């Protein structure tokens, strides 16, 4: 297969992170735009999925706009030696969509484990959090629930350097 050089990889990343064209032959459209072959674009995207650079490839749903208005970021203060176990319990739960460890920022921020729970209503999300606490005996862990009240932006990341595009445009 045709291996892309790093400049071509960056250009493809930049082009596709805005979304796949909604045209019958989207990979061909991208290829023509970038001066590549259609097969090279398809092979590279396949390779990126295999390597895990692309986590998933498909429709990116805006939960808020399909009625999932209750979006809770639940943050926990978990002793280091329990992080793995607690994170495992969260991850196994259907209600949890993401689970990350982050640094504490004392004294302002004591929480080191984050998980996201999306739901249609605030009440059901709070019940799900309660159920999580009960099921896994997490009553001893300080935690806080940060519901979102407004979505100012949701779009894909911009990892490729736009200046590269401008330079080689």
């Amino acid at each position, binding site marked *: 297969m045709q291996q892309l050089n790093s400049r071509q990889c960056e250009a493809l990343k930049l082009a596709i992170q805005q979304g796949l064209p909604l045209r019958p032959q989207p990979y061909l459209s991208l290829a023509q735009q970038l001066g590549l072959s259609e097969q090279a674009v398809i092979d590279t995207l396949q390779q990126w999925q295999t390597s895990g650079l692309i986590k998933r490839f498909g429709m*990116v749903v805006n939960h808020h706009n399909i009625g999932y208005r209750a979006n809770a970021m639940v943050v926990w203060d978990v002793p280091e030696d329990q992080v793995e176990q607690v994170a495992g319990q969260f991850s196994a739960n259907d209600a949890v969509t993401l689970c990350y460890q982050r640094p504490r920022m004392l004294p302002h921020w004591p929480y080191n484990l984050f*998980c996201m729970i999306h739901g249609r209503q605030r009440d059901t999300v709070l019940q799900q959090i309660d159920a999580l606490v009960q099921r896994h005996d997490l009553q001893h862990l300080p935690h806080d629930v940060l519901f979102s009240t407004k979505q100012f932006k*949701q779009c894909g990341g911009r990892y490729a350097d736009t200046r590269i595009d401008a330079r080689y445009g």
Partner: protein
Amino acid sequence: MNTLARQLIDRYQKGLPLSPRPYQTMADALGVSEQDVLDTLEELQQQRVITRVGPVFDHAKAGASCLVAMSVPAEELDAVAAQVNTFAGVNHNYAREHHFNLWFVVTARDQNDLQHSIAAIEQAAGYSVMPLPMERSFHIDLGFKIDWEPQPCNN
């Protein structure tokens, strides 16, 4: 939302075909026409039900990213959020109920650019940032199973 829209969302939050005519492949799987799929995707995009059809990159492998929190007086929140949004690398930005009431994710090509962006955002916004980089990911987002609400009855 019509049945095709729901079927597409249920089935194609991941695994979009890498065939030369992916929308035709999807249409074949669902027993509709390629044009039906394209029209529906276009409509979902216009309604902002989907933000795009495309890849979700692994933050750590694709470049650098960081969750950032900010504490902003309530009456300035909209203006500061808009200011933050002017930076192209900002890809999620939410108001949340907390002393830290603005939460956004900054993405960049590498750590160096990321730090520059965060500093520039802090300066433009006029409030201190609290960066909370991901140290470890325990759960990978593989799409989201939508619990469709029952269709309203006609009678």
